């Protein structure tokens, strides 16, 4: 009961910083591992991901080949490690452009409102009527298979979520005192928007970016599996699962390990997303 005496000396209690949850730390640790594997696959991988070895076809997991070998005698562990680079690239390039474009557009139309907001809103409503995967594979079908065309297709579709999140946030932030203060001080709208509103309004989009990266990897791998994404012999986890699908009965390891790698990458990003959402949530 400190208020009972000497209230003058009382220092207002600083809100205690919450420690990040273990899930966020686990997610970040896994992310570091994935980044390391993507940057320096040579250090981790015992063999080349593309060299054939006809002496070791379809060998099960062993000390020499912990994840076994495939039908060309390629070391599955090495291919999974090299695949990290492709799938991390997919995670970045399926989300980067939608994030930048969607966030900026959301800030702009959220701030301007009126017809610009209405027009973009109609376009967004239209985009979501098409099942995401269907629209992406239809665009890829027209442009031709491959990673670059997949990035173009995803970018054309994926910005909507970021637009929604940022638009809503800017619309509520622009009524905040600090934004009104900026107007009173005579700051230009672009300064208020870019220097003051956007940094405050971007949090939900950043949290969603993590979830979206795990969705991006799943999408990229699905297209790879269907033959529309990364093209062989590029080691990509989805393509590798497809490579092994005809050997499920005799050599389960060819598909199973790349699939586990995909799941691990997905879990990594969703753990970070959850952790960030929790850490960045305004404290009550």
């Amino acid at each position, binding site marked *: 009961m400190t208020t009972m005496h000497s209230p003058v000396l009382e220092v207002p209690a600083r809100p205690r910083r919450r420690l990040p949850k273990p899930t966020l730390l686990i997610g970040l640790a896994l992310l570091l591992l994935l980044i390391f594997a993507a940057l320096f696959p040579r250090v981790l991988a015992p063999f080349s991901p593309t060299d054939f070895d006809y002496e070791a076809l379809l060998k099960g997991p062993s000390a020499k080949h912990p994840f076994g070998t495939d039908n060309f005698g390629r070391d599955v562990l090495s291919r999974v490690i090299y695949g990290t680079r492709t799938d991390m690239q997919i995670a970045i390039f399926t989300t980067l452009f939608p994030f930048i474009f969607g966030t900026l557009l959301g800030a702009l139309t959220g701030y301007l409102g009126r017809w610009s907001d209405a027009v973009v809103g109609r376009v967004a*409503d*239209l985009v979501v009527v098409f099942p995401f995967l269907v629209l992406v594979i239809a665009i890829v079908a027209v442009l031709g298979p491959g990673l670059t065309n997949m990035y173009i297709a995803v970018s054309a579709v994926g910005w909507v979520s970021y637009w929604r999140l940022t638009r809503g946030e800017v619309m509520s932030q622009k009524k905040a005192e600090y934004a009104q203060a900026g107007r009173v001080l005579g700051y230009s709208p672009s300064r208020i928007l870019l220097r003051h509103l956007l940094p405050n309004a971007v949090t939900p989009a950043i949290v969603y970016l993590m979830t979206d990266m795990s969705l991006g990897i799943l999408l990229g791998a699905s297209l790879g599996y269907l033959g529309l994404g990364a093209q062989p012999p590029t080691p990509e986890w989805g393509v590798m699962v497809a490579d092994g699908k005809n050997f499920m009965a005799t050599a389960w390891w060819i*598909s199973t390990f790349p699939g586990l790698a995909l*799941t691990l990458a997905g879990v990594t990003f969703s753990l970070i997303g959850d952790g960030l959402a929790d850490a960045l949530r305004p404290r009550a």
Partner: protein
Amino acid sequence: MHASYVIRRLLQIIPTFLAVMLVVFLLVRLLPGDPASAILGDRATAEIVERTNRELGLDRSLPVQFGVFVRNLLQGNLGDSISLKIPVIRLIGERLPTTLFLTAYAAVLGVLMAVPLAVLAAVRRNTWVDALIRAVFQVGLSLPVFYVALQLLSLLGARLGWFPIGGYGENFTGHLYHLFLPALTLGLNLAAILVRTLRNSIIEVLTAEYVDFARAKGLRSRVIMTRHVLRNALIATVTLLGLNIGALIGGAVITETVFAIPGVGRLMVDAIFGRDYPVIQGLTLTFAIIVSLVFLITDLIHARLDPRAELT
């Protein structure tokens, strides 16, 4: 539910359909070069390309072409499949029921898994039961559909022989049996999407003042569960199902491909590899129409179940 709301919502679908048609029309115009050469391949002579362009009406201006496209659509004419040489509308008509059956089946399995587990997680929130359910579905959400499909197919289909490894079956029970694994694959994916949001919305209800009031009033907890909690869980489930119809269709495309099910999803993938543009166009249009109809139905059901919905 007010009639004016229903009418307003029904009318909104007309501009949506027109815009969908425009997108699908423009999609094929994105093709590098002219569609005729793309359809005919590299070996066609300039003469044949020109004739095909004329036959397809591609020598006319874009607005005129779009007018023809819409007129044909309204007459139920989606063109002919290039590889199968039959009308696209007939092809879709033959294959669509299979996909609808699969997605409905998957939705039922998904809801049967998700709702009880979400209620359990919400009631026992912040205990190990809750943590376990959430952890399992968090991993489930990161499992690629094609991977789950392949593993189930190989384990329960090929190795243990409990379920057929492909095909659609003859009658209703045959469909149920043949499509069990594909529907389970899709259902698991859907359940992973549903569980978390459902859990949170149930917790919101459980901690709401009117539930406290009901308890204070002395209502038995079973009555509270059915009258308040489950009713709200139902509303949330319907909304979530509607919102995720696109993901369900995308999942069906992959699942049908893995399990070799003769539905529209597999047709889409086949059409892409066969560069069968009329089929791709027709299917994209069909999927978009299905999604907008599901959105419409979801809104109407929502308005029916939740009296507050019409106001927003």
